[in-house]
């Protein structure tokens, strides 16, 4: 073969280029992940897991949870929003006129149609979204104008997407979220729900344990198999239940003088599950968190 060297070079270039693109490029871009700071706070993200939860990740992996559950939230868009919280002592009609009169402000011009459109069929109920779109100057101008006339409004950044809409996440998942996951359990099939926020949705370790032992006892239509191997069903000592035994509804509890005690593995897995709470805003995935205290 006279062209052997040329073929070797061509193969080297082709493989080298894809190595650079897929391996080196990604490493250079995301390889140096460190703890970051949560937006508008001094907390670090992600927090280091407890030892029990770190072990739990290996149980999660061992039982193949990632075959049916994902840990990744997708986001299709983001919006800057201004919503009206209370009108103060203004009448709805008066307020509508005020909004119309404000549309000559240069910063608000591009959003005029959107804002006026949102108020067309409005009957005075609050909260109502006045503006939802890209432009952050519209938001700050509008909020300042509303404040100056004594109308209470709220400016926020919201993440949009089907995953977020159904409450599985509050923002998209980013590389920093997986800093302490080894290996990362992204998953690619959602036979069960996404677990990115399971520690926020169900923060109770006992709920998690009960759900693992008898899925239908906590979620009526769950299709998850029961992970009985994680529990020890044993005779009650002296007719009394152990302190760590599950408190199950009668139809799910084993018959007779038996109790269900979670093994160390079960506790680790539950600790891992309640540690999954990627719901804080980061620079790379911003949103305004909902604060209940007002």
């Amino acid at each position: 073969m006279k062209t052997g060297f040329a073929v070797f070079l061509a193969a080297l270039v082709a493989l080298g280029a894809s190595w650079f693109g897929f391996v080196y490029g990604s490493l250079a871009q995301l390889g140096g992940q460190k703890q970051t700071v949560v937006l508008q706070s001094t907390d670090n993200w992600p927090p280091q897991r407890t030892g029990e939860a770190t072990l739990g990740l290996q149980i999660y992996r061992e039982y193949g949870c990632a075959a049916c559950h994902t840990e990744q939230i997708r986001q299709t868009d983001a919006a800057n929003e201004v919503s009206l919280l209370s009108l103060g002592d203004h009448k709805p009609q008066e307020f509508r006129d005020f909004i119309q009169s404000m549309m000559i402000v240069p910063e608000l011009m591009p959003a005029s149609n959107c804002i006026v459109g949102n108020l067309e069929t409005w009957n005075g109920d609050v909260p109502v979204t006045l503006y939802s779109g890209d432009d952050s100057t519209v938001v700050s101008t509008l909020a300042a104008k509303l404040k100056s006339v004594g109308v209470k409004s709220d400016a926020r950044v919201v993440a949009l997407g089907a995953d977020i809409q159904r409450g599985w996440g509050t923002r998209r998942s980013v590389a920093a979220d997986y800093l302490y996951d080894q290996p990362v359990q992204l998953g690619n099939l959602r036979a069960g729900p996404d677990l990115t926020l399971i520690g926020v949705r169900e923060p109770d370790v006992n709920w998690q344990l009960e759900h693992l032992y008898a899925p239908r006892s906590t979620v009526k239509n769950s299709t998850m198999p029961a992970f009985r191997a994680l529990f020890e069903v044993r005779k009650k000592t002296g007719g009394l239940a152990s302190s760590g035994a599950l408190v199950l509804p009668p139809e799910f509890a084993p018959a007779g003088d038996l109790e269900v005690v979670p093994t160390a593995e079960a506790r680790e897995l539950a600790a891992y599950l309640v540690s999954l709470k990627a719901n804080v805003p980061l620079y790379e995935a911003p949103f305004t968190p909902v604060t209940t205290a007002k």
Partner: protein
Amino acid sequence: MSDENKSCSNAPQGEPTLNRSAAPMWIIVVTLTLLFFGGLYLDSHGGWFNAKVYTPYNSAERLEAFQPQSGAAAAAAQGKRVYESVCGICHGADGAGKPGQAPPLAGSEWVLTKGDNRLVHIPLQGLAGALSVKGQTWNLNMAAMGVALSDADLAAVLTYLRTSWGNKAGEVTPDEVKKIRAAIGGQPQPLSGDQLTKLPE
């Protein structure tokens, strides 16, 4: 049998050789077109390989536009906005001042005072006459530009010039501005350099 004969008779004589001929024009055109559109797509969706930029943000600017606006970052952005529309016209966007128009603010001893009492007085009362800034005497007048600004805007812009262009001094709060504004009262008179020096820092 006949098949074998046929294949034998059609067999090429000896080792095939590689012809060095130019690639067809259409392949070159298609490749370049694909590269062009690939480049366009990368430009508009790649975020320039910034590790902080994920979909759906496309670019660092777009990501910046979705940062929640409140707290310190928002105050700084507001200060910059006010500066550029009010103060920057004479003092320059870089705070370096303009000869015959306005002295520099970057590194100015009147900006980098320990407290902010003097600094807040300047935009609220204005200046008249000679004032030495960074070893150079400026004989100019400054109108009370801050009177028309709200307390929050004035505090934000003063904080901006105390923390920009290498300046490192404490921030100015709206409450202090409010207090000093009330102390000055309704008819602000421009300060001379001597009067300004007599004010506590």
